[in-house]
């Protein structure tokens, strides 16, 4: 064992250097993990956008099924004059909303849009969707880790798929 002659034992130095090295490796891992997590959260939900039924799409997106809630308020026309452009909006009084999604049962692909709501963003979205024909429009809200939904039938006179 070397003697440093300044009262600082080599063993202690070795341990501290080891601890320092581990600490640096730990720090080095963080950015990698952070970006991997961020990438996972930002990933486009490919599978959900391939699902034919709204049940499969919701399962692919959220891993669970919603319960109907009157705290999810959907605004959609009774009759859509133009199925290619149907204005649908939703607002909710639920707290801790993290996600809002729109689905149309009778569309070839049920999932139309899914929005991420970070903390500080109002849980309210307006958008314009295509409807192939008269169908249920479903809005799903993820709040506090739970899933809620509202459904409304919208009649379509001229289908939105160009036919």
């Amino acid at each position: 064992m070397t003697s440093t002659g300044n009262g600082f034992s080599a063993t202690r130095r070795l341990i501290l250097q080891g601890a320092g090295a581990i600490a640096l490796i730990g720090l080095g891992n963080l950015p990698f993990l952070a970006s991997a997590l961020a990438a996972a959260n930002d990933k486009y939900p490919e599978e959900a956008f391939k699902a034919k039924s709204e049940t499969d799409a919701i399962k692919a997106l959220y891993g669970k099924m919603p319960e109907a809630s009157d705290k999810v308020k959907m605004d959609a026309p009774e009759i859509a004059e133009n199925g290619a452009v149907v204005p649908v909006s939703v607002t909710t009084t639920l707290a801790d909303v993290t996600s809002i999604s729109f689905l149309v049962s009778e569309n070839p692909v049920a999932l139309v849009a899914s929005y991420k709501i970070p903390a500080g963003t109002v849980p309210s979205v307006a958008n314009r969707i295509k409807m192939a024909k008269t169908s249920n429009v479903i809005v799903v809200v993820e709040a506090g880790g739970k899933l809620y939904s509202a459904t409304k039938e919208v009649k379509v006179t001229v289908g939105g798929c160009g036919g």
Partner: protein
Amino acid sequence: MASTIRVRATASGETTEVQALIQHPMDSGFVKDAKGEIIPPHFIQQLTFEYDGKPVFSADWGGGVSKDPYVKFAFKGGKKGDDLKVSWVDNKGATDTTTAKIQ
């Protein structure tokens, strides 16, 4: 080339309301052209809005969103004169981005 994104962000009290209109065909891939051939899918897949370097709203879209998509949302915070950055990526890998000033 001019941006495909038109955005209006208005600060009112504690909230900033944002409306965006984007030029994009949003072809679902289910429609046939006059010759009876399928028009290939061509639609925006992801759209993000950033304020102060952080996402305040993001969208995952499919071909079921209407052509020239419109979206409206609001977030707490945001001051007049601050920047709001909007970007999108479509299924062909094309992108566009713009920065608007909150009014």
